[in-house]
């Protein structure tokens, strides 16, 4: 019996189709996606469908379901929130965006809004996710 011991020739794989696909994916993400304007920390905002587009919320505070408040990533207690925001901006900001979980109890949310109002921040906007239809 003859055993064939032919060595397969080492050949460079044809990479062109791969590059084509990767380029297409890259273009898809560039065109269809937008850069994440803030870190959500797993928070799911409520959905709305009839609000017209505005600018992306700049530097929002993020309120998780358990009531943890984050200001640009750092956890801040409710009692120190207004002071912390004032220290960050130099003075108390006029407009503040809040990213809050859709299941967050309304009482907790109102408590936060109230303490911000007491610190002079009256223009509070709740960040929602736009859903088409309905």
């Amino acid at each position, binding site marked *: 019996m003859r055993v064939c011991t032919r060595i397969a020739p080492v050949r460079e794989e044809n*990479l*062109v189709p*791969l*590059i084509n696909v*990767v*380029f297409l*994916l*890259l273009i898809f*993400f*560039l065109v*269809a*996606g*937008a*850069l*994440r*304007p803030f870190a959500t920390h797993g928070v799911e*905002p*409520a*959905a*709305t*469908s*009839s*609000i*017209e*587009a*505005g600018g*992306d*919320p700049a530097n929002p505070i993020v309120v998780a379901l358990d009531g943890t408040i984050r200001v640009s990533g750092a956890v801040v207690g409710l009692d120190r929130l207004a002071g912390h925001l004032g220290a960050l901006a130099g003075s108390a900001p006029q407009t503040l*965006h*809040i990213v*809050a*979980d*859709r*299941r*967050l*109890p*309304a*009482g907790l*949310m*109102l408590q936060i*809004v*109230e303490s*911000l*109002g007491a610190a002079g921040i*009256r*223009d*509070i*906007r*709740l*960040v*929602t*996710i*736009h859903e088409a239809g309905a």
Partner: protein
Amino acid sequence: MRVEAERRRIRRLSLTPLIDVVFLLLLFFMLSSTFERYRSLEMDGGAAGSAAAGHDVLLLRIAEDGGFDLAGGPVGADELVERLVAIAAGQAVRLAVLPRTETALDHVVRALEAARRAGIRNVVVVK
């Protein structure tokens, strides 16, 4: 003096660095992009007692399960906008949204959006 003409070697350009860079770009955009479109909704917490100040204040209660109760009568979530339009019709109405402490924010947002669609601008959320 003999000048030797340099022979140009035709060599295929190596594609590997290009692929590396494109892969890195792809990874970056996959990880940092989002397909969600964000909107913002004004939420007026209202000063304590401000809702009771006027006499033409419409009260919208929201139960824990998301049931709406407009001016004393239950209202379905789908007919909330119509009811608000019917009541607001042309006149300046103030709406006070009163959720229970444990009501999910989702329902409050739904109420605020309905008021917005009904053209009511003067909305406060009270507790």
